[in-house]
């Protein structure tokens, strides 16, 4: 049993469990699945700065912060106790492309050569960690949601604005990964 759990899980198992989070949150307290709102709640709690967008009672949304706290804890527990020792399988084309940029360490879920405190002192690392993070935070709030709020919750509730948002997420990702990221990675 534990051996099965330790293997990487197939997409249909992961997808089904994530899909069931939607009714789980609804049934537990009429909560709508979404994660990026937490970034807003953190702003509202820590730096509201008299900005109308952050002047609301964030404590009413504290369930969302507990939810994200659970994600953090889940990450910790699975890394500690449910890990598999096998290296992650990577598509050979991707491995070849990344090797051309000097990225050869595929041991972690995150490439240590790009995301580390040391990488912050390089142009590449600075753009990817600070710039990338900023785009995630700005873009999700501008769009009114992220992959969970729009692509999963919004589409599950058949909301066409969420379909527009999801298509734009994918278009943006394709443009970045294929046409812009290669320039950033060669810095």
């Amino acid at each position, binding site marked *: 049993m534990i051996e099965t759990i330790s293997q990487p899980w197939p997409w249909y198992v992961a997808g089904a469990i994530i899909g069931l*989070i939607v009714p789980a949150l609804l*049934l537990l307290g009429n909560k709508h699945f979404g994660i990026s709102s937490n970034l807003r709640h953190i702003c509202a709690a820590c730096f509201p700065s008299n900005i109308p967008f952050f002047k609301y009672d964030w404590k009413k949304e504290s369930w969302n912060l507990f939810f994200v706290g659970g994600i953090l*804890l889940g990450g910790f527990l699975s890394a500690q106790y449910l890990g598999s020792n096998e290296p992650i399988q990577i598509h050979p084309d991707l491995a070849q492309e990344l090797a051309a940029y000097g990225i050869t360490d595929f041991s972690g879920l995150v490439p240590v050569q790009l995301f580390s405190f040391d990488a912050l002192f390089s142009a590449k690392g600075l753009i990817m960690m600070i710039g990338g993070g900023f785009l995630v935070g*700005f873009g999700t*709030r501008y769009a009114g949601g992220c992959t969970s709020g729009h692509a999963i919750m919004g589409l599950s509730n058949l909301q066409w*604005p969420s379909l527009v948002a999801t298509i734009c997420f994918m278009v943006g990702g394709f443009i970045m990964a294929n046409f812009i990221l290669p320039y950033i990675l060669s810095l």
Partner: protein
Amino acid sequence: MENKTIVHSNPADYQARSLDTMCINESELKHPWWYNFKYLAVGLVFGVVFVKAEIISWFRIQEMFRLQSFHMYGVIGTAVVVGAISVFLIKKWKVKTIHGEEITFADKKFNKGQIYGGLMFGFGWAITGACPGPLFAQLGTGVLSISVVILSAIAGTWTYGYLREKLPH
């Protein structure tokens, strides 16, 4: 009635919140704070799935945007199908929460932010290889430098709030 008065006592607050449908799923029930641990438990399951299905892997996201792997499409597609069936059944049978409250749904209104913001998030997603949820899971697995990415994302959200009135919507 008393609860309603509290909810609407600050019109500016209510207006700011209703601009973002993500944020107005109001519960009229007042529970002790530790009731929120049920959401922590759901988040914990989510975090484990994130790691075990390699959804938080930067490499999986790169493969997705290069059409080199079906994995992420399978995950998101299955999640949407299961989620949609669940929402359909909850609406059809008018299922209530475990505390007997009605389950409500809000329609999302279209605005240009879904296009501009969506594209910006797409750029960020491909760079960091993570959406907001996976960032927290990555940090949980012990990649401490991701805290910098999360702080930058918070700064991005703050900047959006600051510029909101000037941006096209």
